[in-house]
């Protein structure tokens, strides 16, 4: 099953992907830096992902792609 993989370089922390998730498998929980700012980013927060790809389709910044679970880095 494919799961979301994030390219955080272009992420603007808008949370659109997390809210699109129908099973709340994504959360804005990952802490990191956006330029100089300490910010939150999306990540898988449980095992509930159903691989539907709604997060990837919703993201305006093309940060989220769906990849086979084994390939996710």
């Amino acid at each position, binding site marked *: 099953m494919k799961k979301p993989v994030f390219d955080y370089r*272009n992420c603007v922390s808008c949370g659109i992907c997390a809210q699109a998730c*129908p*099973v709340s498998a994504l959360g804005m929980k990952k802490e990191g830096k956006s330029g100089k700012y300490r910010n939150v980013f999306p990540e898988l927060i449980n095992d509930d992902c159903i691989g539907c790809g709604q997060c990837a389709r919703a993201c*305006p910044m093309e940060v989220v792609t769906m990849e086979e679970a084994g390939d996710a880095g």
Partner: protein
Amino acid sequence: MTSFTGRILCVDLGNGTAESRSVPPEVYEAVLAGKGLEAWYLYKHIPAGADPLGPENILAFAAGALCGTGAFLTGRWTVACKSPLTGGWGDANCGGVFAPAIKQCGYDAIFVSGVSETPVYLFCDGKTAEVRDASAYWGLDATEAENALHADLDPVCRKKPCVACIGTAGEKLSLISGVCNEGGRIAARSGVGAVMGSKRLKAVVLAGARPMPCHDPEAVKALSKELGRKIVKMSLPSGFGGFFGLGGRMMGRMPAMPMDGSLAVYMFREWGTQANTPLAVTSGDGPIKNWGGTPKDARGLPPQYNPDKINKLETLKYHCYSCPIGCGGRLDLRGRRYAAYPETHKPEYETLESFGPLLLNKSLDSVLQINELLNRAGMDTISAGNTVAWAIECYENGLLTKEQTDGLELTWGNTEAILALVRKMVDREGFGDALADGVKRASERYGGKEYAMHIGGQEPGMHDARNDPQLGVHFVAEPAPGKHTVGMGMEYGAMSLCDICSWAPPATLHAKKKDREDTEEMALITKANACYTMLTDGAGGCLYGVMMGVHMWKLVDYLNAAEGWDYDGDHYMEIGERIQTLRQLFNVKQGVDPASFRLPRRMLGWPSLSSGPLKGVTLPQHRAQVSSHWRAFGWDEKTGVPLPETVKRLGIDRLTEVDV
């Protein structure tokens, strides 16, 4: 396909029913969703003379048209009702993730009528909607209630629920209470929390997972990508905050001028709105000492409210749904003075000003605690601060005695007394009981009306009309008077509205005193500002999008892509005009006289200030400016009542015949 779900949820708490109804497309074409949909529905369905705290009042929760389409800065949700504070139109909005949650349940808006006999909450997951017992949550503050609902419902919901709820202030029917979400972020104005409390509706809990519609999501996302790429690169070097007091002094002397909207992005990304506090104190924008003071009175305050100092307490930024800016943050308060709460949201400018310079309070730590206390209680910090300022001035002038204030020494800048009074207001205890209903009611009971700063019953936001006369027009011409979020001269300078609207005048470099004159140009500017803000509210947009200007946040392009329309800016501005006129008609229907909304004498410059950037400033043409604003809208220039030909031109007569 458009971005609208085409459905609303109508809940009657009198009999505990919830019914889904469809809304015809012509309604959305006319008013979009959000505040527009609410204006249409409430104008039609709340009977004239309805008791704001009775079963006939309807409490609305709405998402905007662009919410869920991929458009940035469109995560605002709006609560609307007949206001118990003003007796007329009431609304408040807030960010977070509650707006998309409404749409993910399959609705554009939820309308709640009736009164429940016992505490209840509304639960909706997109398949069912039901009214449930809330007795276990009644009596909890907003954050406690939200956490308790999550603890009970998260394990049994496939999609994590979103919660909007009242705190204890709303339960106790404080007329200055609001509705909260996400740990005390509050839709604060107009007394919407009291209306929710009167219905014994503790919370609305939404756990739907339906896809949110959009005509051309790829086109919308392309617009967002362009904006996101710009914003993510924007940051300021740290360390400027200490110079804002000086910067404000310069701003106070500068002429009005067109500005680049990206300035707002830099400011809000770096600090949030709190950066404005030292600027406002020295520039004349922010009120000092209950709107009667000058920067001399506030000497020493700007460094206390240095935004860099507040940023140092920030542990993490957060963003509203669909926002690339992220003006919000969590502050660590451990080890700070008065630290009853270990953390709080980064306070907004309005809160810092209301409990800082307005009261000559030098203690930032106390304001941070008051911020958390009022957020949890669900009480409006603007209204509460204005009310405390009135109490202090009454006490200082001998109108209130120590016996009446329950022993509190209510003097300017007395931090301990201010904190104690706010706690009393939240608990409705002793002297605080009367103050919990705002400054108008308090002054009617105790006297001191000359110190009671309100417009039509609502306390004004923390911006001075003497500094920004356009704001003064909006303060009184706005159907929900006293709100600072409808228009300002400074905002207009950054919006570039003339580039999307054929009749909106261009922003120009000019002496500030020109803004005090009654001219046709000024009337068109205030009209354009109000129309664009109403359009934004119908779209569910954030005021920061407005401040960015039309070339960064491309609202017209967003709407055309999301709805599959091909309208120009003039058409969309007419939608804003229609929404504003519907809200004004709501007031007329409810017997509220628009001409009764008046700026307090102090804000008109009587008595005039003796020093500072507003020295000697008066607004003798203010009433004429309001009349011209009404005339520009096609409302009677003497009464403010929309003229029959205007109602017809905007199609409101036909619109109000549409039923659901």
